[in-house]
């Protein structure tokens, strides 16, 4: 089947199988570099994208689902080379090491803050519970997010 959607603001048309996941289509067919395979079962969050602004595990989303929708990745956040506040905060707080989880982390934070600009710790931890990081110990990530919340 042929699906049409917008990927980071640009129109995309691609033939997909009805059982194919969005992750496979983005990664193996469209060459989207910032969406990562980590577990394939919605545990790690490395594959998270925003679909019409809401976060979804692309490994648990069938490609057919995005037909007619808008898919955003971390690659489109920075405008004209200017990083967003969250991206800047991640850099300033050394909130990434290997970087494999970072795009998913940044998108989940963006989705959270869009809905709830000043989340409590409880809400923050709740939101982040589906994103694993094995390098940083999370503290720098939390610090980065808090620095954005304060502003």
């Amino acid at each position, binding site marked *: 089947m042929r699906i049409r959607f917008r990927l980071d603001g640009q129109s995309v048309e691609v033939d997909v199988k009805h059982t194919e996941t969005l992750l496979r289509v983005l990664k193996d067919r469209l060459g989207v570099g910032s969406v990562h395979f980590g577990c394939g*079962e919605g545990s790690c969050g490395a594959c998270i994208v925003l679909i019409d602004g809401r976060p979804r595990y692309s490994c648990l989303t069938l490609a057919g689902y995005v037909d007619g929708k808008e898919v955003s990745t971390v690659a489109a956040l920075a405008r004209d080379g200017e990083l967003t506040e969250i991206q800047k905060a991640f850099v300033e707080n050394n909130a990434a*090491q290997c970087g494999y989880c970072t795009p998913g982390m940044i998108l989940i934070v963006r989705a959270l803050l869009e809905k709830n600009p000043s989340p409590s710790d409880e809400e923050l931890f709740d939101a*982040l519970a589906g994103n694993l990081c094995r390098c940083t*110990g999370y*503290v720098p990530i939390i610090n980065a997010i808090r620095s954005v919340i304060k502003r």
Partner: protein
Amino acid sequence: MAKLRGRGIAAICYPTGMNLGGDPSQTVIIAQPDGTFVVNVASVELGQGLRTVLAQIAAEAIGASIEDIEVRFGDTQLAPHDTGTFASRTTHRMGNAIIKAGQEVRQILLDVASKILEVSPQDLEIRNGKIWVRGVPDKFISVREVASQAQFVYNIPVVGKGHYVKPKSIVDPETGESDPHSTMAHGCVVADVEVDTETGEVTVLRLFTVYEVGRAVNPKLVEGQIIGGAVMGLGAALRETVYPRYPQIIHQTTSFREYVLPTAGDVPKIIYKIVESPTPTGPYGAKGVGEMVANGIAPAIVNAVYDAIGVQITELPITPEKVLKALSEKGKSK
């Protein structure tokens, strides 16, 4: 419901580099036409920040500005032999190799600058991307300019090579007599825990950690290792194993739903301090830090649970189940 609190400590040492040595690292630093430098290493950037740390060491050794250093890594075609990125060896072994290569480059730059400035190389100083006649710091020529002119004007290649190996120590098979490591780093962890005696759950309240790293080449990256290592240690202490019924293979874990890692909200307060005791064997005194930081956490937590409940659990991880069983054994023996 009873909650018991306890405190535990662990003191540790960490041998830097491959055990017994014999693990070479080699590098080549090459000036580019614009006078910037490429440092070629076969080491791998795993997220620990090697690109940054090795660039700092190269900049320091050459006297170049950090912005003018690019570390290219992870390619056997571009870089000479390196044993690998493990055993906390890269900062130490490759760092030493880079210092040697950087010093070669530095000497070339001083020689060329002496031609440009018409003074003896001994009268020159080089630091932070600038070369000047000793005592006249406001009259300088940039390292980039010198490195570039060396190639375009003076017909001199600006290439530095460096190699480092701790010669392999041969072990006496009867006594184990040997020289296993280049240097020891040290650490100490204090863990405060709370144990729920009904469910057996252990909550780590605080981790105080102190690490002696020789020299913190980049304190920000050392901090990153300390916190990341602490959380990896936390997981190992409380939850992680792929064989929950070891040595049986039944229930071997197959996913993050069975092998459950802590998430952002599951991390205790981590208070840390970095201490320096430079080693003469290390680059600018540095020892290896990446692995040590994961090692003291589990024993400190287990000792804290011992303090809280009065029973020492000896098998990792100390799951709530093991804590409950330990408590009930204790109850029986009373």
